[in-house]
């Protein structure tokens, strides 16, 4: 009986690895290479105990602890203690995301697409698919954990030895399995893949907040209720605890067992939460081409608005100690673009002001880069609607192509303004609450700084509209260009020749200083607005004149 339930699981495992050979390999490589890249960079940035201790001190406040987790080994803050403390939480969440996508892809998504049915009709056990998915997840996480641990160990960074690296790797694998099992559980409960993925992501958020609450109050029990709190108790490179990994592993097994049980008692294609009936009729808001566009983009835009506000807020938490924090690290100053040569001539107060200004400029630029993503997404939605044949539902009715496309374009433009406003607001509100009177930013200054980037964002929108209109089969160009823009803005100053910087619209914004008495050079902004308008117009006209392409 039991054997029959799991029959042929390993054949399915092999099949899963065949399907996953690119995606999961890419995930693992990206995660391990990221680890191996960041660890030495961080060690170089804080080469001595003094700089690290000061860093630890600047992070030792409730808000930072809520965000990053407790600081372990502060009295002997080695490069390892710093890496473990700063990175493990975020690494754990990245691994969680990989696992959620992986498990939902092979359970509920496959089931929804009817692929599980095909497998089930073969001589495989009832639980073979779920079992194979979890076995694959186990293998993937163990490989990832080993590679992460080994990767860190072979770097040979002082105080980042084998034991600590392996503890870090083990924690990685264990937390990955926990979220794999959570995704497996939600894949049984909900009846569709987007619901399973969504709920799993919500669980990351909830666990993050439980941990934040526990860590902030120093309440170990609350923190350890959350897997994300538990994983930090590994104290990699400090205590190298192995028990959190064991507890996490046991948790994963228990949750998986529940998922197996639920899977075995439900019908194929069904979930435990009955799909709620929706509206029988459309609201008046939906009954137009633009209403549909809004409906299609609404959720994404709202989520991004919240994300950007929080992102702005999170940068603001470090504002209090920022000038000493950055001023002590020449590498930081270089990355952020502090004009070091002007620094010596200034009084101490003016030095601090200049550093804070530069930081503000840097943050504005970073946020603006992130803000490009939802704007590109909004326009690219046009293309996926077209490719999947849904655009035709609208365009074979009395709706002009240019009108249909304009809906997406208008939303993107309006949202660019909203997003810059929200980010600036998030930054200002939290900076004020953290630093009080010491908040070096004024609200109008911040708004001006963020709004100065609008024409650059518009050029990005215009470029996307142009590509969707003119080269619908080559929309990857948009993301490639975004990659170049992000890289040039972040690292370009350090590594690229000046002429190459000219390919990114962000470069032409006159890097305003958010504090006060700064002057915006309006000429490039007006020119960029013009360019954006021309690109948009060409894109819309081309879209109206070409075939709809459903491939």
């Amino acid at each position: 009986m039991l054997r029959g339930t799991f029959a042929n699981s390993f054949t399915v495992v092999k099949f899963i690895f065949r399907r996953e050979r690119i995606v999961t390999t890419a995930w693992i490589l990206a995660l391990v290479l990221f680890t191996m890249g960041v660890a030495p960079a961080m060690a170089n940035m804080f080469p001595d105990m003094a700089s690290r201790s000061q860093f630890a001190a600047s992070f030792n406040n409730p808000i930072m602890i809520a965000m990053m987790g407790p600081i372990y080994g502060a009295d002997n803050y080695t490069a390892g203690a710093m890496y473990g403390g700063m990175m493990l939480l975020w690494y754990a969440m990245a691994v969680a995301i990989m696992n959620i996508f992986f498990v939902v892809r092979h359970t509920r998504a496959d089931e929804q697409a009817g692929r599980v049915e095909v497998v089930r009709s073969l001589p495989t056990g009832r639980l073979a698919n779920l079992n194979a998915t979890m076995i694959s997840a186990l293998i993937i996480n163990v490989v990832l954990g080993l590679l992460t641990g080994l990767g860190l160990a072979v770097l040979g960074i002082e105080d980042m030895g084998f034991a600590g690296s392996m503890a870090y790797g083990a924690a990685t694998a264990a937390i990955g399995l926990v979220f794999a099992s959570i995704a497996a559980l939600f894949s049984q409960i909900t009846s569709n893949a987007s619901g399973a993925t969504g709920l799993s992501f919500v669980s990351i958020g909830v666990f993050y907040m439980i941990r934040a609450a526990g860590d902030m109050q120093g309440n170990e029990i609350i923190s350890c209720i959350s897997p994300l709190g538990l994983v930090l108790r590994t104290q990699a490179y400090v205590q190298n605890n192995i028990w959190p990994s064991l507890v996490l592993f046991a948790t994963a097994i228990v949750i998986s067992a529940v998922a197996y049980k639920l899977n075995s008692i439900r019908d194929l294609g069904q979930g435990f939460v009955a799909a709620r009936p929706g509206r029988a009729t459309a609201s008046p808001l939906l009954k137009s081409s633009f209403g549909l566009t809004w409906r299609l983009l609404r959720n994404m835009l709202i989520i991004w608005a919240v994300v950007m506000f929080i992102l702005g807020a999170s940068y603001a938490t470090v504002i209090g100690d920022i000038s000493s924090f950055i001023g002590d690290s020449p590498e930081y100053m270089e990355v952020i673009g502090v004009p070091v040569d002007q620094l010596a001539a200034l009084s101490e107060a003016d030095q601090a002001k200049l550093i804070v200004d530069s930081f503000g400029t840097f943050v504005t630029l970073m946020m603006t880069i992130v803000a490009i993503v939802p704007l590109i997404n909004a326009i690219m939605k046009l293309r996926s609607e077209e490719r999947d044949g849904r655009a035709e539902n609208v365009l074979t009715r009395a709706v002009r192509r240019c009108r249909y496309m304009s809906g997406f374009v208008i939303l993107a433009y309006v949202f660019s303004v909203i997003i810059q406003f929200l980010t600036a607001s998030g930054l200002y509100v939290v900076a004020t609450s953290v630093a009080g009177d010491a908040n070096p930013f004024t609200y109008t200054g911040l708004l001006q700084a963020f709004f100065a980037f609008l024409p650059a964002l518009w050029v990005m929108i215009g470029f996307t509209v142009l590509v969707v209109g003119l080269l619908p089969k080559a929309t990857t160009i948009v993301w490639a260009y975004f990659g170049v823009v992000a890289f040039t803005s972040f690292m370009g100053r350090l590594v690229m020749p000046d002429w190459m910087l000219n390919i990114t619209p962000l470069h032409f914004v006159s890097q305003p200083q958010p504090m006060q008495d700064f002057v915006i050079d309006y000429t490039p902004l007006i020119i960029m607005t013009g360019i954006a308008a021309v690109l948009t117009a060409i894109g819309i006209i081309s879209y109206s004149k070409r075939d709809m392409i459903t491939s």
Partner: protein
Amino acid sequence: MSNYTLEITNLTKKFGKFTALDNVNATLEKGEVLGYIGPNGAGKTTTIRVMLGILKATSGGAKVFGMDSWRDAVEIHKKIAYVPGDVTLWPNMTGGEVIDLFVALRGKHDKERRKKLLEMFDLDPTKKCRTYSKGNRQKVALIAAFASDAELFILDEPTSGLDPLMGHHFQQCVLEQKNLGKSVLLSSHIMSEVEQLCDQVCIIKNGKIVDTGTLDSLRHLTRVNMKIETVKPIENLATLEGVHDVIEERGEVDFKVDYLNVGAVVEYIAKYGVKKLESAPPTLEELFMSHYDTKGV
């Protein structure tokens, strides 16, 4: 200016080097139902997509209500209702919402009719589209189409996912529209459906129209199936002009006769004392197969 509801003239559509439609000509008069048949990949959907202004003709073109299908697409769309062969909907919207949206995008809204059609096609409008089967997605598109006050209905294999009862309801809807003087272009694989509904038939193969006309006129070009029993065995039947596929079995003879030779053959067999004679016109299916079977007529 022509009086045709739909007039396709020398339509050619190329995708790169591939010729999807090669000099296609077809017409549809007001109040008529035109059956558009052909195997998968023959170019039916491409023709329809050009008519709808979703694709641009490489040369030639289509006129709908006398207007250019590409240039005046929006004006044309105000008076047509379209059901695609492969209905893709938004997974997180309900069927009811989609129907209302579709009807609203065209114009007028008839609540009574919507309700009647929902009952007729037995569709739960409160379910999310992602939970609908292919047949249910087709029902959404069909309800939206028949709930709208259109002059021309363009239906691309609309019943491929429906059960026979729903297929019957669908035929009723088409006949109802026809009686109201509306025109219908029906692309279909279901020959009985085409035979029941269509005044004219147009057969497309490899992007070319290979046959067109009324069902009767098409039949003239083909063979009649005959089954006879005679007192005396018939001599030399197979050698008669226009007789094919003779099969003798227990005194009964099955064969096919070219339409034009029916009279002569009947005269000839009368001499052998006919006990039983059954004759059947070729089904559309045979007509269809005769064009696709490489060994056919």
